[in-house]
């Protein structure tokens, strides 16, 4: 059962990754050529505080986005999962996903229309006499986080819903009937069951946020560059693939560390949980 997917991944994931990572230690030549001489020059360049700063800035924005999505998405997932009527649940889920079915770039652009100095929000605020001068709502970190949250919130709600929905309501009821306070019931009964959903949701939101390119470009006005933009710049604009590969490597090392953390959380939840 494992074989088809693993072979698939070996060919189309492991081999390509190997290619990219090997490239990180070669020299970049003119016109995007790769000179196959081993070098550590790319590593030295990547350790420039400016580039390390971009990496941390990206991690910070992506974490903020993930946290906000979790806080916004959890009540929504609970609400949807606790509807008795399947039809209502389906309808609500569909409503959550529907915005996702318009293009990501278009939806990101919608926030420019809303937030720019001459945009809908500033127009409304000025019209109501709340502000005299338009506010600078766009082209900053807050706008980038807003755009990421808007883009990826459904990716948090779906796995949360899938996890919460499979909890038998009777279990929860039983726990409450047996005198467990709601909060205690949540902690001891529900949490272990939904942690896999939370972790999945966080992964789904964090990764595309961290590697995002269009949102910082459009809503950050290019002033708030993230690691994805930096990598993209190396590959597409300047075509220095070896240096870009080195930045990718740095990103991957960081993500590996987070992967270890995530599996640790999962393992703990399984020890606490029912199927320990």
């Amino acid at each position: 059962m494992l074989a088809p997917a693993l072979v698939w991944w070996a060919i189309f994931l492991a081999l390509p990754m190997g290619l990219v990572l090997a490239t990180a230690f070669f020299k970049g030549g003119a016109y995007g050529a790769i000179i196959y001489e081993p070098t550590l020059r790319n590593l030295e360049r990547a350790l420039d505080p400016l580039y390390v700063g971009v990496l941390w800035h990206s991690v910070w924005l992506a974490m903020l986005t993930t946290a906000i999505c979790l806080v916004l998405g959890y009540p929504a997932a609970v609400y949807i999962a606790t509807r008795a009527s399947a039809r209502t649940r389906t309808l609500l889920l569909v409503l959550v996903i529907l915005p996702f079915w318009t293009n990501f770039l278009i939806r990101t652009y919608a926030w420019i229309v809303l937030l720019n100095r001459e945009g809908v929000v500033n127009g409304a605020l000025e019209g109501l006499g709340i502000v005299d001068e338009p506010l600078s709502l766009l082209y900053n970190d807050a706008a980038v986080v807003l755009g990421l949250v808007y883009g990826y919130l459904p990716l948090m709600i779906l796995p949360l819903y899938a996890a919460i929905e499979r909890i038998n309501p009777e279990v929860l009821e039983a726990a409450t009937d047996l005198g467990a306070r709601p909060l205690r019931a949540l902690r001891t009964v529900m949490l272990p069951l939904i942690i896999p959903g939370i972790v999945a949701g966080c992964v789904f939101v964090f990764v595309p946020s961290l590697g995002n390119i269009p949102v910082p470009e459009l809503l950050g006005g290019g002033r708030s560059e993230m690691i994805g933009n930096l990598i993209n710049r190396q590959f597409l604009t300047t075509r220095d693939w070896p240096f870009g590969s080195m930045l990718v490597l740095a990103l991957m090392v960081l993500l590996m560390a987070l992967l270890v953390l995530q599996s640790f959380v999962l393992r703990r939840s399984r020890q606490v949980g029912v199927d320990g």
Partner: protein
Amino acid sequence: MGEPRRPLLAAYMGALFAFLYLPIAILVVLSFNDSKLATVWRGFSLRWYEELFRDTEVLLSIRTTLVIAIAATLLSILFGTLLAFGIERHTRSPALENGIYLPLLIPDVVTGIGLLSFFATISLPLGTTTVIIAHSVWGTAFAAAIVRTRLRGFDRSVEEASLDLGVREVPTFLRITLPAISPGIIAAALVVFTLSIDEFIIAYFTAGQTVTFPIQVYSMIRFGVTPEINAVATVMLLFSMALIVGAYLIARPRGPRAARPGEGPA
């Protein structure tokens, strides 16, 4: 049996939907804007719809994207479900369990670049096929992760009881296991499909001369956004709604056969 009434939570849902839909509503309004500039209103007009329906490039790119998304979803569900079962049922290897999340932890730009150099190396021409392959690489991971979440909560004793009663494995799988995990599979299919439709970066690297819809939109934005894009958004929204209503109507008659009452056609 009644559901918990939570007025605060209901109000919150309302606010959340406002947050999700307001920006799109603005685009819908702007799609009727006569001005070439999306930030300036200059009266009602249908000209962007006229331009859209004459714009064969946009229409073609939408078709390409749909073909890619459907193929990538099918492949991903197949590989992903097998993988989820294999991991939950046939292995206790923590490395493998964590391994299936690995493709989700690789940023699109990395996957895209890696595949581009790989396809170039084996001289596989770039096009629809390569994008399908690329999308099902992470699609498989999404599908496996979601199906697995569902599978882990599934009470195996029902399945074992069925087997003990002499029902063979395949019917047991079809009658007991599949209905129970089908919400997971459907959720996975929805996620993979919607992500594939929307996926820009990997496609950009692996599409070659093929233009997917996001690539087309990107191209249009680079030369200045026209309300034609807003018209596209409006049409896409209507299309999605029609599709969902249609799927719902088709799925409804079979609803009551689901494993648990209230499981619904999801």
